[in-house]
C-alpha cells in the first residue's frame, strides 16, 4: 500500500471515529451536543461563512499579517544574519542581547505591542516580525558560520579573493541552512498568529476562533482550527517544493 493511500485511509478512519463519537453523543446525550460538533456541523459552519465572503476575509487578513510580519523579519534576519556570520566582534556583541531575549516567550510581548501600536494591523505585523526575527537571525548566522573551511581553501587555491569567497562559496554553502531558517520562521509565524488574533483583533482566523468561544459555537472553533491546519500544511508543502527546487543539487537522482 503506498504511503498516500495509507494516509488517506487513516484520515478516513479518524473522521469516521470522530463522526461516530459525535453522533453517538448526540443520540445518548452524554454531554451537551453543542460541545461535540459532528464533522457535518463543522463543514456547515465553514460553508456558511464562505458564502458570506467572511471566511475569505478572515483567511486573507491572517495571511496578510503573516506575510508582512515574516517578510520584514526575513529581510532583517538575512541582512544582519549574514553580516553577523562573517564578523566575529558583531557576533560577540549581539549574542548577549539575543540570549537575554530568547527565553522570554514572544507572546508575553503581545500586550506590549497592543499598547504600543494600538489595535491596528501594525501591532499584529510588528508582533509577528518580532517573534520571527530572532530565531531566524540566529539560525542564519549559524548557517553562514558553518561554511566548510575546506571549501574556502579549495576556492582560494583556485584564485578566489575574500570577496570571491563570500560571494561564490559562503553564500551558496549556507543557502540550505538559510532556507531552513526561513521555513522555521514561517512555521513560527503561523503558530503564533492565532494567539495574536485572540485579543485586540476584529478579523482573522484567530478572531474567528475566539468568536466561536464568545458565542458558544464550538463548531466554529473546530472549523477555524482545521482550516488553519490545512493552510499550514499547504504552505509548508509549497515551501518544501520551493526548497527542493532551489537545492536541486542536493539530491539529484
Amino acid at each position, binding site marked *: 500500500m503506498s504511503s498516500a493511500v495509507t494516509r488517506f485511509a487513516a484520515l478516513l478512519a479518524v473522521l469516521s471515529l470522530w463522526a461516530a463519537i459525535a453522533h453517538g453523543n448526540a443520540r445518548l446525550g452524554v454531554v451537551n451536543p453543542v460541545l461535540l460538533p459532528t464533522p457535518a456541523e463543522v463543514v456547515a459552519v465553514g460553508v456558511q461563512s464562505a458564502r458570506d465572503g467572511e471566511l475569505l476575509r478572515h483567511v486573507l487578513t491572517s495571511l496578510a499579517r503573516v506575510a508582512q510580519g515574516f517578510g520584514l523579519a526575513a529581510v532583517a534576519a538575512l541582512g544582519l544574519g549574514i553580516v553577523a556570520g562573517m564578523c566575529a566582534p558583531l557576533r560577540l556583541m549581539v549574542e548577549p542581547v539575543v540570549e537575554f531575549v530568547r527565553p522570554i516567550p514572544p507572546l508575553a510581548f503581545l500586550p506590549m505591542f497592543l499598547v504600543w501600536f494600538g489595535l491596528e494591523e501594525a501591532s499584529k505585523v510588528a508582533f509577528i516580525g518580532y517573534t520571527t526575527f530572532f530565531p531566524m537571525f540566529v539560525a542564519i548566522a549559524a548557517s553562514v558560520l558553518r561554511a566548510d573551511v575546506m571549501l574556502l581553501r579549495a576556492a582560494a*587555491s583556485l584564485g578566489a579573493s575574500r570577496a570571491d569567497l563570500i560571494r561564490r562559496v559562503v553564500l551558496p554553502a549556507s543557502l540550505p541552512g538559510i532556507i531552513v531558517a526561513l521555513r522555521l520562521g514561517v512555521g513560527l509565524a503561523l503558530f503564533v498568529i492565532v494567539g495574536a488574533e485572540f485579543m485586540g483583533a476584529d478579523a482573522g482566523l484567530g478572531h474567528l476562533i475566539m468568536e466561536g468561544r464568545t458565542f458558544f459555537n464550538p463548531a466554529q472553533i473546530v472549523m477555524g482550527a482545521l482550516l488553519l491546519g490545512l493552510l499550514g500544511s499547504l504552505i509548508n508543502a509549497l515551501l518544501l517544493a520551493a526548497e527542493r527546487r532551489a537545492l536541486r543539487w542536493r539530491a539529484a537522482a
Partner: protein
Amino acid sequence: MAGHTSRERGGLEGAAPAPSSKKGLEGAAAAPSNKKIQIRRVSKSFGAAGRTAPALVDIDLEVADREFVCLLGPSGCGKSTLLNIVAGFLAPSAGTVLVDGQAVTTPGADRGVVFQEYVLFPWLTVAGNVEFGLVLKGLAAAQRRAVVARYLDLVGLGAHAEKFPVQLSGGMKQRVAIARALANNPAIILMDEPFGALDAQTREVLQDELSRIQRLEHKTILFVTHSIREAVYLADRVVVMTSAPGRLKQVFPIKLPDLRDRFAPEFTQYESEITRVVKEEVAKVHP
C-alpha cells in the same frame, strides 16, 4: 640515527632529476636546477601560548620545476601540515616558503590543491566545478567551455559534465578535483593523500591516470602519501619524514623510467629500501 646524519638537515637540496628522466617531448630544454619551491627552515607548532606542541621542525627542502616530489611518513609526522603551509592555508611558526623566489603567505591560483576529501562545490555541476577558477579569472563562456571539455576528457569524464557531485563515485569525484586543479593551469599542484579515501583498485587506476597526466602536463607536484608503493610509483624523489615532531629523515631519488612497472625488480628494491627506513619511524609511534 647514525648513518643517517649526513642525509638529515644539512644537504637536503634534492638532487636534480637526472636529465635522462622525465623530459619527454621537450628534450633537455628545462633547466634542471630551476628551484620552483623553496622551503627554508620551516617550523610549525600548534596550541595556545605556553602549551605548544611542535609539528614540524626545521624543514629545508627544494622542489625543482616540473619535479614530482612525494612526502612520505608515518601518521602525525606533519607532512599534511607542511603541504598546508606551502599551499598558504597555514602560516609557519618560523621560516619561509618561496615560490619562484617570492614568499607565499596566502593561497593562490599558482598553487592548485587536490584534497583527500575531494572538496568539490556541491552546488555546482562537474563542469561548474572545473571552470571555477576560470570564472574567477573572467574568461569568456566559450573559452571556459573549451578548457573544461579538454580537461574532462583528459580525466575521462567528458560524458558527466552536467552531473552534480552527489551523483558521482569517489574515484570520479577525485578526477573532477584533479581536472579542476589542472584547468586553472597552475605551475604547481599540491596533493594531500588524494587517493587515500578510495579503495585499492580505484587507487591504482588513478595512480596510472596521474602518471599519464603528468607525462603530458609536466607540472611541479608535491604529493603527500603514507603509501610507499604509491610514492615509488609516482615520484622523482621521495622525501621520508620522521615521526612527530616532523623532520626530514632521508631523501631517495627514484631513477626509474617514466612508465613504471610495479613488479620490476628495481621498483621492488626501492620499495624495500624505503620501507626499512620508514619502519624505523613507525616503530617510534607504535613501539
